[in-house]
């Protein structure tokens, strides 16, 4: 896999700290929902920094759609969220990964569990599902700090046959929300049709601590460990 030259062609603010970026990448092709890319920046003095970002959308070759959440004091994300503008060039390696991938021909129920910007690969899966007849039922559990931190909440909340979402707010809830702020519990991960006996494929994505807590709850509910696929991310 070699590096491709990428050009920023669009940006869109999503939350206080997250932004969508679209890159034009000649030679980039065949990405699957759940895959990621490595993104490399090179400073004028030759210093390079590389980070991995999940694809937020797939299905269009020579195009890379990302959602980047800013990590304070990070080397790459502050540039991508605050400074990158159309015409800027960087480098992309990918598409990458084959483990944390949803194949749109698979009709098994899919349980998605996201912490913060861990929802990004799930956006790609949801968008791909809409494009392929919605055969697989999807259930998304999304944990965020506050309502203002929810990425693409309007899109996720848009009614879609066979798809349900459950939000968990850990620091601040929306006005009128029926529950106080709290962390995710085993009860949040139980939904009819998405249990261990339903052949459910489970994907968990988020910061390391969130992923380990959620994966522990899921295996405690009886999901076989090899049906619980996890992806962790850290500071960047």
């Amino acid at each position, binding site marked *: *896999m070699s590096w491709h030259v990428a050009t920023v062609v669009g940006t869109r603010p999503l939350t206080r700290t997250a932004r969508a970026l679209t890159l034009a990448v000649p030679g980039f092709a065949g990405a699957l929902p759940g895959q*990621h*890319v*490595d993104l490399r920046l090179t400073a004028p003095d030759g*210093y*390079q*920094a*590389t*980070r*991995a970002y999940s694809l937020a959308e797939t299905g269009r070759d020579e195009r890379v759609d990302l959602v980047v959440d800013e*990590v304070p004091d*990070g*080397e790459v994300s502050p540039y991508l969220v605050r400074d990158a503008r159309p015409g800027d060039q960087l480098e992309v*390696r*990918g598409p*990458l*990964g*084959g*483990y*944390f991938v949803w194949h749109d021909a698979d009709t098994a129920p899919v349980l998605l569990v996201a912490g913060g910007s861990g929802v990004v690969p799930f956006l790609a899966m949801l968008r791909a599902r809409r494009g392929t007849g919605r055969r697989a039922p999807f259930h998304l559990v999304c944990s965020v700090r506050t309502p203002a931190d929810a990425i693409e909440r309007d899109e996720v909340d848009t009614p879609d046959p066979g798809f349900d979402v459950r939000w968990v707010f850990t620091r601040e809830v929306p006005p009128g929300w029926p529950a106080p702020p709290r962390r995710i519990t085993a009860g949040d991960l139980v939904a009819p049709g998405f249990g261990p006996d339903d052949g459910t494929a489970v994907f968990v994505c988020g910061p*390391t601590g969130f992923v380990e807590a959620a994966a522990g709850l899921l295996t405690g509910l009886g999901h076989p460990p090899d049906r619980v*696929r*996890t*992806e*962790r*991310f*850290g*500071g*960047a």
Partner: protein
Amino acid sequence: MTSVDRTVLDGSALAGALSEVYAFEATRAVLRCASCGHTDVLARTTVHLSAMGGVVRCATCTAVLLVVVERPDGVRVSASGAAWVQAPPR
């Protein structure tokens, strides 16, 4: 040089670097730990990233399985902690 923040991740974080070395998709490749015999896909290993590169550890006994360094002249993999590495099914 290449710098990466110090953080704990999993094998997916090294998919790009390993794609420079292996013809197969690395996150689905199976590794056997030479220390404890635990056998699982790379995606389930623990990865520590630093400015030097990535250190892949066994999720069971934390022994070092692989060390992956992105050098200017190419990616180098030390695999002395893995009894074997098996390519994933196509």
